[in-house]
Each structure stands twice: as C-alpha cells, then as structure tokens.
C-alpha cells in the first residue's frame, strides 16, 4: 500500500514520464469454482483496509468492453492499482541518482567484495576497485553469488518469467488484468502494444523463452481477447528474478559493511521504489526502519 502511494508522484520526482497508469487491477474469474475463492480473498483484503470489491460479469463488461463477455464470470477489482513502463522507471531512477551525485559503472560485473580493515567494503568490478563504507547488494538473480562471496548463503533460486508484446493497437483498456487462478496478466502499454505474461515461471538462470509457455500464454489471452488472434506479436522474452522460499524479499544487513535487498520473487517492480526509499533511510540514519523488519534473512535459518 505504501508502494502504491509512491507511484503517482514518481514521474515528477524523477523528471521522466514513467508512463504510470492508475486505472485499477481486475483479477478475472473464468470458472465458477474460483468465484468463491475470490470472494473470500476480497473479504480478507477488505479487513486489511484495502479498497477491493467484487465485480460481476456485467460490471466487467461495462468497464472493459474489449474483453470477451462469455469468457468472464466476474472479477476482483482494486481501483488503486496501476502499471508502469519498467524501462522508464529504471532509467528515471538512474538519471535521478546521477543528478544527485551518484557515480555509475555500467557493463561491469562485480566478481569480488571484500571487507576492509577499517570496517568498510572493497568492490572489484572489472578493472575498477571501489571502496565504500557500505555496499548494498541488489543484484537480482546475481545476488545469491554475491551474498555467498560475503559468506552469507541465502536460499535464493533463479526463476525465469516470460512475456510477450503485440504491435501497437488503438486504446483498448487502461486497467491492469490478472487471473485467478494465476497464470496470465496483461495490460496495454502507453505505446499501444498489449503486453502479457504468465505461464509457469521456470526454475532456471537462463533468460530465454520456451515455446510451450508462449503457446500456453497465447491460448489463455486469446480466450479473453479473441480479437488478438489476428494481431501481430512483436517480441517474446524471458527474464530471471531471484525467488525466496516464502515469496517475500530479503532485506537485511549481511555484515558490518553490507546490506542486501533481493529475492523479490517476481514483484520487484511494484516493490522496488518503496524498498529503495526505506533502504536509503536505513543508510542515512543507521537504523533499520521497522517496516523492513519482516524481511530479515534470519527467517530462513531452518531452510539452510
């Protein structure tokens, strides 16, 4: 929720349009057996104070007429959710960091991190050696190896997620869509392409697509949006994220000179901005913000 509150102001804060569209999120129900599950979910989330409600088939049709009405029984609707352009979000933060005085080294792999005598850290990136009081490991699927280097093994597993994008289309809908059971999500980008993903994420460190997963995703989205059958797909791709056993990130101190923030388990885009903000506060004050306390590495002691 804290994260959601952050997004609307980000384009201004970063000085770059991150193409944030806040038009709500619909989790679509396609078979009756899941309608009850969804109702229960909604009840639970409402108890937590979240603005979610049930939409019946007619409500969904009114809200998103592009969807095939026959395929949908209803949806769980959260009006505050949105979607962004992940590239612009990342570039925006990068540029803002540079403006704020951060140095950068792109295209260099960190192969060694050592603790220095004075209590700081020394990072080896290609031919460069960088000394710092604190190093933050936020290397996605590359974090496991770096934490290992620091002598702190974490139960992180690489998972490959896949998605596709179509050629640009006239505006169809502004909302973000998901399904229950999970397996498909989609949105229309500012550029006009319908971006969709899902399938099962595959446990592997290589970021490439698998024909079977692409077919699965295509089968699912064309049931909900039959008009897409004749639309060209421009690109399919895979990306690897670090997953934890409980699907929650690890944000903790590894040593005197190192913090870690990783294991976003497929949700790092939504969580990245807020986590970054609290990490910065932690670095500034030297005190771990309470909000981050559930994400300690200690919770995995038994798993190792």
């Amino acid at each position: 929720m804290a994260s959601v509150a952050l997004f609307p102001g980000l384009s201004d804060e970063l000085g770059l349009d991150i193409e944030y569209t806040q038009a709500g999120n619909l989790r679509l129900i396609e078979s009756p057996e899941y309608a009850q599950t969804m109702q229960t979910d909604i009840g639970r989330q409402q108890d937590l104070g979240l603005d979610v409600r049930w939409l019946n088939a007619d409500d969904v049709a009114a809200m998103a007429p592009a969807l095939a009405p026959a395929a949908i029984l209803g949806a769980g609707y959260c009006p505050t959710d949105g979607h962004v352009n992940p590239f612009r979000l990342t570039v925006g933060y990068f540029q803002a960091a540079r403006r704020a005085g951060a140095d950068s080294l792109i295209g260099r792999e960190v192969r060694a991190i050592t603790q220095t005598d004075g209590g700081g850290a020394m990072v080896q990136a290609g031919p460069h050696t960088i000394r710092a009081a604190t190093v933050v490991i936020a290397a996605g699927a590359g974090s496991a190896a770096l934490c290992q280097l620091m002598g702190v093994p974490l139960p992180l597993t690489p998972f490959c997620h896949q998605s596709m994008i179509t050629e640009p289309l006239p505006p169809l809908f502004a909302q973000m869509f998901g399904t229950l059971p999970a397996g498909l999500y989609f949105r229309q980008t500012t550029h006009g392409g319908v971006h969709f993903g899902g399938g099962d994420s595959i446990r592997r460190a290589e970021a490439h697509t698998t024909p079977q997963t692409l077919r699965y995703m295509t089968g699912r989205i064309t049931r909900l949006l039959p008009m897409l059958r004749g639309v060209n797909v421009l690109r399919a791709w895979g990306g690897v994220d670090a997953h934890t056993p409980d699907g929650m990130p690890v944000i903790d101190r590894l040593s005197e000179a190192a913090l870690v923030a990783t294991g976003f388990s497929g949700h790092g885009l939504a969580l990245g901005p807020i986590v970054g903000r609290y990490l910065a506060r932690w670095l500034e004050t030297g005190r771990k913000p309470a909000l981050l306390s559930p994400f300690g590495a200690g919770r995995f002691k038994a798993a190792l």
Partner: protein
Amino acid sequence: MTEIIVIGAGPAGVAAAVTAAEAGARVTLIDENSLPGGQYFKQAALPAPASLPPTLAENFRQGQALLAGLSHKNITFRGNTLVWNVTPDRTVSLYGPAGPETLAAAQLIIAAGAYERVMPFPGWTLPGVMTVGGAQLLLKGQRLLAGQRILLAGTGPLLQVAGVQLLEAGAEIVAIAELQPLGSIIARSPRFLGHRDKVKLALNNARRLKRAGVPVKFGYAIVRATGENEVSGAVIARVDAAGHPRPGPESALAVDTVCLNFGFAPDTRLTQLAGCKHHFAERFGGWAAITDDNMETSQPGIFAVGEVRGIGGVEAALPEGRLAGQVAARKSGYRTDESAGPTRRAARRARALVGQLNTVFAVKPGLMTLAQDDTLICRCEEISAGQLRAAIREGITTLNNLKPWTRAGMGRCQGRICGPILAHLLAAETGLEAQSAGQFTVRPPVKPVPLSTLLPQNNNDEVAHDK
C-alpha cells in the same frame, strides 16, 4: 522427427539439401520466399525471360543448374514459410500457408544468408533512398528500374556490379560514390593476385562504366539526400582516411534514386536463437556463427553455412552447403562418397578472397558524424541520433542496454537495420571497439507473426501449466 531441416533456400541451403538428399536422407527445405534461389539466384526458379541483359542471363544459367537438383524425391520444399523461432534442441517454429506448425529436426542446417548494411546521413529515410539489393530485386524480379537517374553510394564491389546491371537495363548512373580512395584499394590489390578471374571481372566493370561516362568517385561519401516528399538530390563529398567529410567543395547531384550498400552483415538471428556461439571480425562482416571444419556450430546437430558463417559470397556458400549436407547425411546414417577435402579447400579459398574484400571495403567510423542529432537512426521507433548520443553519454556501452533505454531496436525489425549502425555509433561516441557493443539479444518471433501462430497445438500445452 524430420531427418534434416534446412532453413534458407539460397545457394548454401540448396547445395546442402541436394547433397544430403542424394546421399539418401530426407530433407525439408524451408524459405520465407515463395521460390528457392536466395539472394543471388532470386528468379532462377522461373523460366528465363526471352531477352535478358548478358550479366543477368549468366546469373540465370548458373541458378537453374543449381536449382534443378531440388527435384530430388527426398526433398520437400516449403516456400512462403517463415521460421520464426528455433530452440537449441532443434525445434523449429513455422508460419506459412499450412498454418502454424512446429517441427523437430534430428539435424538442422541454418543457411539464412545476410542483410545489407547501410549508414545514416541526413535524408537517408526519404522515399527513393534504398539499398542496392532492393534495386537489384526490382530488376531481377519484376524487370523494373528503381529510377531513371541513380546515385550508387557506399563501399564495395557490388556498387559497380549493380551499376553495370542498372546501366544495361537503361538507367542513367549519375555517379558512384565509393568510400575507399583508389590509392588504398590499389595498395592492397596484391592480396587479390591469386584471383585473376575476379580482378578481370572488376576491371571489366570499371571499363564499361567508364565507357558509359559514369563518374566513379573514389574516396567519396554521400553526406546528404534532399527532397520534399521523395529524394530529388544528393550531395557527395570527399572523406578522409577515417571517413570524416573533408572541408572543401561538395557536389550536388540531381537524382531520383539513391542506392546504398555498405557491405553485408550475416543474418545470425536464427543461430542466436539456437544458442550457437558467435564471433566478431570485420572480415566476416561483423558477428558470425562459429563452426568447426564440418560446418557444425557449438550446438550439436546444428550447422551454419554460407553468409551466416560470415560474408563469403556464392563461391563459399556452395561448397559449405555441400559439406554440411554430407556431414548431416552421414550423421543420419547415410553413406556419401564425395571426399570432403576439395570441397573444404574451395570454400576456404573463396572465403580468403571475400575476407580480404571485406577488410579493404570496411565501413569507416567517421561516417557516423554525418548523422545530425535530428537524423533518425532507428526507423521503426523513430529514435534520433541525438537521443541515442544522450543515452551513450549517460554511460551506455552495449546494444542491449541501449535498447530498453531508448527503444532503439524495439520495433518491427528488432534492430536488424539499426543494429550495425548503433554499434558504429557506440564506437564513435565511446572510443571503444565496435565489437564491445555486443549483439542485440534476439527475441522470437524473428519477424512479427499473428498471435494465432502461437496458439496451443495439442493438449500437452495445457496440462503442463494448469496446476
């Protein structure tokens, strides 16, 4: 499981298919064009027209001799069929008249050819500015002239070859602007002494252009194309050894067509998708698939032949295709009696020559200064040189980083056209070698296909995921 699948029915792919079929193997040969022949024998599958200019007639004869082999009963040719994805386990995804289809190959031969390189300058996106290959295609395919008053610009022997063809067909060649100074070509000409026939051919072309009064300007580059809605003029200027335009007079030419060719780049999209290893060198035309002596790539059972291995011309493509056809047939359990030695030698000899040509006629980094900040580089997404330079100033050094940063290479062509240009731009701005920019990661589909192409083909696709 198909015994052997050959992707690409150019000289390399056809030679591979025929050789393997004659050894007894069953071959499926696939091309996105309706007819086999590839770049060089584009129209040879059709009956030769009654009257053809002499250079085209010779091309037809050679092509027909090669394509005759495709009538072998073991060969299935599937035209109009795009291979839009290949995986390391040799699964090939097709989009063609038979609908979407996925084939598995025991042996896979990739002979996908090359594409032409161009360099940007103000006005290069005007209608009427095209590639030399595009103009040749009109000529060979539809007997059409791309224009009446043509400037050919770029670098390499193809400019003069095409100049003669267009001249024979009745066009006026206003000028040929060859990037390399004549002196540097002559200084390096001893490298071609062993290839007397080729040198003779080149001199012959030069003589014919001279007789027709075509000015061939060595050490010149096109610096600008002008016109309202289509090209009506072009400006050429002398360039220095690094490719920077020299101060001094420019020549403005009245033209209705500009044909560009700055050499070729191997089309490695399929070998990249298949996970094959690649290497970079100017003499290959850039990034090319690595193979062993048997044309097998780093992925077992996947072969690469012809231009995909590096720009080598027809005379490398044919023996390499035969070699791969033989080896793939043998791996499928068929005996072949042809000895590989002479075939290998022929391929090496042809490659040695073209490799030299590729280095003599290399693109020069200084040409990148021609692109003004408002000159488009990525045409699909309309990204300008200025936007790209700004990103590079922020520390971007690779194509793969430039893509999400700027959207360059994200459009319909997936960076096929702008990729080599962006590598030059990165090199020019950062001072790094062009190869350090890397290659764009290739994403399926290699060309846009309707989503219906990816629909589940059987129940397996469902079961695996509905959990």
